[in-house]
């Protein structure tokens, strides 16, 4: 997993609430057995017409946002299915951070496994950054994970909370499975205990 430390990038505004995983990556693109290559289909049904032409009004089709690395989104971003194809598609497009007031639980966890930082801010703070993002490519938003801050293009600084374990893994680009395997003795001990107490499992 790629490390996440700091990011200074163009932010695309998507104020719609409840943007679901079917919007982020429609089901026809889940038939892949790879993790890469989904960026071209990110937000596919909002981004392209049925015959594949770009819809010019869609934010990521506008010249200013084609290289966006941050999304500023409405409440409850990523609701719906558990498909990790959603963060894979975001990452493949080049998105490394999302800013919203809230996320669906599974999507939120999936982001951290893929080097994407989902940032939770207060509604009034998201409003400021949404307006900032609407200014286009000249307005760069800065994210500093170590300091847990987001800085708007005009220098307003907002702090965010993040779980210490998730932060540690993201900053160092750590593989969860490797870390857990270091605790194999605890897992073995649990299995011995559990199989005595609940042998039917």
């Amino acid at each position, binding site marked *: 997993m790629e490390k996440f430390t700091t990011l200074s990038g163009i932010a695309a505004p998507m*104020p*719609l*609430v*409840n943007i*679901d995983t*079917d*919007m982020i990556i*429609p*089901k*026809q693109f*889940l*038939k*892949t*057995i*790879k*993790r890469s290559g989904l960026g071209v289909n990110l937000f596919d*049904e909002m981004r392209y017409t*049925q015959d594949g032409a770009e819809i010019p009004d869609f934010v990521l089709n506008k010249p200013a946002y084609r290289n966006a690395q941050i999304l500023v989104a*409405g*409440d*409850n971003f990523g*609701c*719906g*299915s*558990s*498909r*990790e194809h959603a*963060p894979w598609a975001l990452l493949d497009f080049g998105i490394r951070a999302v800013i919203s007031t*809230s*996320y*669906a*639980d*599974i999507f939120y*966890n*999936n982001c951290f*496994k*893929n080097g994407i930082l989902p940032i939770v801010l207060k509604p009034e703070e998201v409003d400021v950054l949404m307006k900032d993002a609407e200014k286009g490519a000249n307005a760069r938003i800065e994210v500093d994970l170590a300091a847990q801050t987001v800085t708007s293009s005009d220098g307003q600084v907002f702090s965010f909370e993040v*779980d*210490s*374990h998730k932060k540690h893994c993201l900053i160092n680009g750590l593989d*969860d*499975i490797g870390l*857990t*395997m270091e*605790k*194999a003795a*605890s*897992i073995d*001990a*649990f*299995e011995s205990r*559990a199989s005595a*107490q*609940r*042998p*039917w*499992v």
Partner: protein
Amino acid sequence: MSPKTLYDKIWDAHVAHEAEDGTCLLYIDRHLVHEVTSPQAFEGLRMAGRKVHAPDKTIAVPDHNVPTTLDRANAKTMTEDSRIQVEALDKNAKDFGIHYYPVSDVRQGIVHIVGPEQGWTLPGMTVVCGDSHTATHGAFGALAHGIGTSEVEHVLATQTLIQKKSKNMKVEITGKLRPGVTAKDITLSVIGATGTAGGTGYVIEYMGEAIRDLSMEGRMTVCNMAIEGGARAGIIAPDEKTYAYCMGRPHAPKGAQWEAALTWWKTLYSDDDAHWDKVVTLKGEDIAPVVTWGTSPEDVLPITGVVPAASDFTGGKVEAAQRSLDYMGLKPGQKLSDIQIDTVFIGSCTNGRIEDLRAAAAILKGKKKKDGLRAMVVPGSGLVRAQAEEEGLAQIFIDAGFEWRLAGCSMCLAMNPDQLSPGERCAATSNRNFEGRQGRGGRTHLMSPAMAAAAAITGHLTDVREMM
């Protein structure tokens, strides 16, 4: 000992390791696997030279991509990319030695229907699957939730998940349901009341007389949609109905082990003075047969209602509601029961069990679907299909003009050939009415199986109580 919720008890029984910051390794008793969210996880194991830690606790079944037409044994009924995914699961199940129900097996079906049916899901277990509707298994008093593919790989490799505990939310449905009101109406009404993010950060325990009165099938329908309310999991304390459902299933314990299990299962309830971080109470008698009008499961109204206007909402929901109305092709003030439909879909992990088919068949018996309407029933498993045939339900559907299909996820998410066309409007017993969910441009109204059957007869959304 301090009082605990049911969730607290199951959690405590499964913590294999706890770090100082409260991050836990939660041990997983059952890992269910399907073809769409697992190929990258198995590939990850191969690349790292890792094995499946507990193949005996890992159960796989293909469901999302599989065609449900009777000719599906012919591989040509699948698109190439679907076939590659199903074949990858065939191979991964064999290579890693996990339990497997291939497409050709009569027990194949939707993973969340097969798990309980085969007795893999039992009270007090931790159950995960790379699918958000894993919440279904909470109906047994199991802690069950969806995970992403990286977590699938993590569970395959270590049989644990890195977790922090969620908060406790109680949803109580008091009293009795009125005639024509079902588990689906309960679960949709709860989401209508709390919103799709109302449960975010929580595990919901459903309780109250109306929940106790539900069958296991009904309880699965309720828990299935906990995720649509944003909750990590939904759970219902086990009782005599739960034990009766589990007893004698192929993978349920037998003899002395059954007795030992039962002794533990009977301790699985929330203590009277347990702490709840959030409480929602609905009166059973206030719940009506409901339908969704928009493109979020929270867009729920009684069938007697009218389509709302965007201006009825506040904040970001105004824009979202307008977008939903445009997408759904509806006008504010229009009576919900005037909405004409093109298609009826009965099935899915929400409503593809035998009781659902019985409820729909009871409405359809001796009647015909409206001319020109497309209607299909997709049983949740091969065994549900066989039982429905034995009970004569299949014939009722066929006589009513429905297609009688083989088991799979089908038109719930349209990864197989069962899809809506742009503008096609569907009365569906599934769980999501998102834009494009059932096919690009398709319009989905969620409802109970009885309501979907009523709509099939009239050709428009219909109050099933008028047919009872």
